[in-house]
């Protein structure tokens, strides 16, 4: 369901993503950093790197490659300047 490689194509409403916990951990870290630091002008360094890396690794193992390719295509249409960046981080 969603972005994942799934054999079962019936749609369900529940979140069955194997990366859900890692995603929540990353999003919680991000939200905290955003509210407490970024909007207050503290953008001098990347944070939540560990959470991001774990989450990304899970995504790259589980994402449906075909859908991901199409997503990155559309993303590069929306952001032509960061095309190189996207391709690099999708590996």
């Amino acid at each position: 369901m969603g972005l994942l490689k799934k054999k079962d194509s019936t749609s369900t409403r529940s979140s069955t993503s194997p990366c859900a916990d890692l995603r929540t951990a990353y999003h919680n870290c991000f939200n905290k950093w955003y509210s407490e630091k970024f909007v207050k002008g503290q953008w001098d360094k990347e944070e939540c790197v560990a959470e991001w890396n774990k989450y990304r690794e899970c995504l790259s193992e589980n994402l449906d490659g075909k859908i991901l390719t199409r997503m990155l295509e559309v993303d590069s249409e929306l952001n032509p300047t960061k095309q190189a960046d996207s391709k690099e981080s999708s590996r």
Partner: protein
Amino acid sequence: MVKAYKQEHVYKHPWERVSAASWRKFADPENKRILSHILEVDTLNRKLDTDTGKLHTTRALTIHAPGPWFLHRIIGQDICHCVESTVVDGKSRSMQLTTKNITLKKFIEVEERIRYDPHPENPSAWTVCSQETSIRIKPLSALASMAEKVEQKCAEKFMQNSVKGREVMERICRYMEAESAPV
């Protein structure tokens, strides 16, 4: 054939809070019931430019979108994938999101652009949200003869969902305001 719809809404909350609420909109458990059409949201990429204070993010949205009966017949599923690309400019206090569909891209292109900026009359306390949705049916597609109906349905759905989205945003802002109030 392109149809564009514009909406504007003023949040009586500072830009910092509104932009933070935007990040939380889909994941907030209490609000998931209202935005139940959003099934999954994954972050695919993010980049912080430490010199300019610009944050670039790409997210993948998986949406339950039943659509008109004939769409379901054609694509055989009720799932729609979208890409959301966001730039937050910390220096100028501006947040811009652009969401486009991946599913059925050959037939229809729906693009939603949202901007959150400090309100010109009250920049420290209010935020203006401008939303523009454009719907374009690709001219040579098989759906061309049903274009009007598809467009209409899409637009209605988008309008309904953006009202829900605003409700959720207002709720999160109030919650964050209460959280940050001195005891």
